[in-house]
């Protein structure tokens, strides 16, 4: 019984998704085997540094990685159909209707030569065959809904006449027009001011709840996923390194990379001039990823085994909290490994020890 209910709520199941770009230097393995599931009405955060594959993953599911040099394998089952094997014509029907996306840069994702009104009503007219007058009325409602003042006047404006925050609201109105069941928001607030970011995130959250829409929020900022998502995936070098309900993730970070991301963030709760625990080095080359754990060259907990064997993504105590690490944060092995690395003078361990000696090895939101 409960199983039936669960399957019913399941909207998207991604299985072993891999995306590779062939370039002259070799094959860039941007996404290297990602699996996750998302239920209707839930929000999933995908977090990681630039180049970790989070955007490529979202675009792969949306089938937006066009070009003859892109190969995507695996499955992305959406409401019973595998998106990755659908003909492109069917995808065109899904875009806007079932799946929608809000992009990072609200200026370049709107057509500068077309009035906002026509861009907002395009999906309605195209997919639903709504007449001009009715589409215009719906557009006013949509703009009201995303809290744009004087919607009638704004619909006649061109994108350059609006501020960045207004443009992003327009993009959200476009994405919501046909009531999709899944919305991808790819760094929707990274180009915006902190006050506007707050408003846009509140708006997305409200719409998501009211419409029972599922949302994937892609961001590099752990502060954005905290409190605004149900579950979080942390990605590194094209793979999921930690996956958990957002609250458990922040309560008990298990992967050294998640912990490192959180530590490197300056916090207003810290005193001024607190030394930050920067992550040393750079993400690996995805043409020739390192053997073993991809984070091992930068990891303060690294052990010889990490450089040889890729740790599996698995749960230890809490079945919902999975992580891929041989020496997880907070475990006896992890604490030993860290202490050993500090004693041996491993630079990345020493850097953490210098910046945050009291919290080393404890993880969590602190």
């Amino acid at each position: 019984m409960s199983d039936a209910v669960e399957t019913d709520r399941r909207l998207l199941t991604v299985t072993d998704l891999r995306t590779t770009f062939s370039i002259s230097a070799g094959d860039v393995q941007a996404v290297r085997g990602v699996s996750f599931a998302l239920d209707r009405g839930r929000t999933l955060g995908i977090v990681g540094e630039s180049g970790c594959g989070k955007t490529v993953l979202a675009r792969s599911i949306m089938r937006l990685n066009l070009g003859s040099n892109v190969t995507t394998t695996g499955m992305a089952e959406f409401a019973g159909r595998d998106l990755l094997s659908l003909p492109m014509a069917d995808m065109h029907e899904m875009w806007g209707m079932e799946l929608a996306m809000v992009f990072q840069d609200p200026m370049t994702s709107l057509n500068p030569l077309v009035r906002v009104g026509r861009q907002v009503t395009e999906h309605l007219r195209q997919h639903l065959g709504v007449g001009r007058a009715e589409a215009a009325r719906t557009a006013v409602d949509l703009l009201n809904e995303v809290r744009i003042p004087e919607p009638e006047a704004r619909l006649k404006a061109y994108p350059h006449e609006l501020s960045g925050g207004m443009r992003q609201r327009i993009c959200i109105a476009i994405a919501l027009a046909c009531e999709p069941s899944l919305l991808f928001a790819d760094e929707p607030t990274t180009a915006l001011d902190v006050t506007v970011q707050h408003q846009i995130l509140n708006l997305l959250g409200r719409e998501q709840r009211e419409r029972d829409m599922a949302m994937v929020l892609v961001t590099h900022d752990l502060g954005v996923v905290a409190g605004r998502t149900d579950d979080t995936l942390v990605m590194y070098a094209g793979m999921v390194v930690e996956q958990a309900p957002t609250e458990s993730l922040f309560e008990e970070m298990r992967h050294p990379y998640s912990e490192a991301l959180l530590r490197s963030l300056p916090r207003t709760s810290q005193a001024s001039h607190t030394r930050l625990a920067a992550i040393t080095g750079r993400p690996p080359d995805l043409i020739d990823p390192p053997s073993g754990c991809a984070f091992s060259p930068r990891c303060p907990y690294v052990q010889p085994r990490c450089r040889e064997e890729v740790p599996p993504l698995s749960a230890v105590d809490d079945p919902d909290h999975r992580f891929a690490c041989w020496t997880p944060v907070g475990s006896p092995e992890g604490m030993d490994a860290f202490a050993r690395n500090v004693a041996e003078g491993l630079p990345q361990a020493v850097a953490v020890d210098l910046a945050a000696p009291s919290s080393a090895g404890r993880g969590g939101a602190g």
Partner: protein
Amino acid sequence: MAGSGKAHLRPEDEVLIRVEDLVVEFPSGRGRTVKAVSGISFDIAKGETLGLVGESGCGKSTTGRALIQLPSPTSGSVRHGLVELTDLSDEAMRRRRTDIQMIFQDPISSLNPRRTVGDIVAEPLRVWGPHDKDEQKVLVDRMLDAVGIDPDVARDKRPHEFSGGQCQRISIARSLVVDPELLICDEPVSALDVSVQAQILNLLEDLKAEYGLTLVFIAHDLAVVKNVSDRVAVMYLGKLCEVAAPDTLYAEAAHPYTALLLGSIPEPDPSAVLDEDLAVAGELPSPIDPPSGCRFRTRCPQASELCASEEPQMREVSAGHYVACHHPLVAVAG
């Protein structure tokens, strides 16, 4: 602020830079002017980091650039020690710029893509000397090393071979190779990933200690500004709102705009309460036609008639903490 006033300025013999009544305006066609900076005053003590913080369009970058006269302000005074920079000839100002250097937001576009890293960092030395090639090389290598770039690897490479964080290190090396007193950092970490951002912030703190630098740190991210600053000035629409030491400012914000900015920061803590109603009152007004009185009043929950008719002046709320607001959120001392 919202407002004007100079109550927060310190005695002139204690400061390296003193800016008074700075006004920067740009023509905007049809006889209109963009009032980017409208009469702000502040000072920077030697060895201090001043954080300038505010939303896009508040005039923080324009203020930073006015310090090196790029462009010269419309009116007002910028004094560097005893010298009034706004009175200097172009040539005299050009010579001053070895003392005041600047780094920019986008590290990749601020480096010439066709030149090698060694050339880029040596360029200021070619202008200002030493002119001896060997001496230059020693200085360049030492500087690259100080910013964490291996000179033997980097010297003959070009900027595209480096990541954003490394390019920012290179541009820091270029600005410091002439041994400036003051470094103006205009959003130096906004284009970088959090992990790299932390590296650059730590580097700036180290270099400041090592070279005895004075910094102006311009950013929109309040957490970043708090981390590096000794004094923070909050700007809104070409005016100063509040000036205080960072720990004071963040613990007891007196200006409603500062409180709004602080409340908007996404905290990486799921249990933090999200204020859904915060900042519903929207957007920055146009700097072509700013509101009368306090410029923040159109978005301010505290606004009264007084705020529309009279511009608030800077006043001290506690030692070293100044605010320009008719209705500050903390009690005014004395």
